[in-house]
């Protein structure tokens, strides 16, 4: 029967004695191989490897296990469905009070995008998400009114 041989020559080119092992002992043979290579390295290389392992552990802790949690966010970071509902609420309020200045002021907290852009984005999402016709109509009404105002502002006086 042929016994498999593991060549333990390391990545630094350090020649190691080959390890003979049975198939069932493959993991142990690999560990032994790694240990032999580690022992053959200089202290500086081992120190750098230890730092890299530490960095990996630190990133795992900082990004996965215990990432920074933001609890003081602004509406512009809201998920798109929440932003759409936010726009819908503005449209609902505008439907009753007709206060365009207030609606624009409220839309401003959703980010740098223009008010028309925000409302259009919300309408697109609402259409895809299957909002009711009544909700869509209210958002479209707000969008139309914003467009009218935009056109008035852009049209130069004769």
């Amino acid at each position: 029967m042929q016994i498999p041989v593991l060549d333990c020559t390391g990545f630094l080119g350090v020649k190691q004695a080959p390890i003979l092992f049975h198939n069932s002992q493959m993991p142990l043979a690999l560990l032994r191989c790694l240990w032999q290579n580690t022992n053959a390295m200089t202290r500086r290389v081992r120190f750098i490897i230890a730092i890299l392992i530490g960095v990996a552990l630190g990133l795992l802790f900082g990004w996965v296990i215990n990432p920074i949690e933001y609890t003081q966010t602004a509406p512009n970071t809201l998920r798109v469905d929440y932003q759409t509902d936010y726009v819908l609420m503005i449209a609902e309020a505008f439907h009753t009070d007709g206060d365009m200045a207030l609606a624009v002021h409220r839309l401003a907290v959703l980010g740098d995008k223009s008010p028309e852009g925000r409302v259009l984005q919300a309408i697109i999402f609402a259409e895809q998400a299957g909002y009711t016709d009544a909700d869509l109509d209210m958002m479209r009404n707000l969008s139309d009114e914003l467009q009218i105002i935009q056109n008035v502002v852009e049209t130069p006086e004769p």
Partner: protein
Amino acid sequence: MNEDERGNWYLLTGVVLGIMLGILFAWVISPVEYVDTAPESLKDEFKDQYRVLIASAYVANGDLVRAKARLELLDEADIYLVVAEQAQQMLAEGGSVEEAQALGRLALSLGQEIPQPKITATAE
């Protein structure tokens, strides 16, 4: 001193140093960015604005179920109390009367939904 005599504590030093560098990178230099947040994580002043908007929308559509569902997104223990307090605070601080009234109307509707304790007369 011989290498073997110096021991392996430097490896632990390396790991600890690495962990510190890793955490510094993960928390300060390149922290996880939250871009898809929920209303519950909003700053207090934005939560106040959110409640005003919910109340204004409620005044427009009269849909209390929807208003309650929206308020629950803010993850507060007693939504009635929070809305009522905000309405009072807004009036006290000279804020918008319309918005305070909207909050007041919503608080009133929410209050009417709270089950009242039943008082039953017992026969002597």
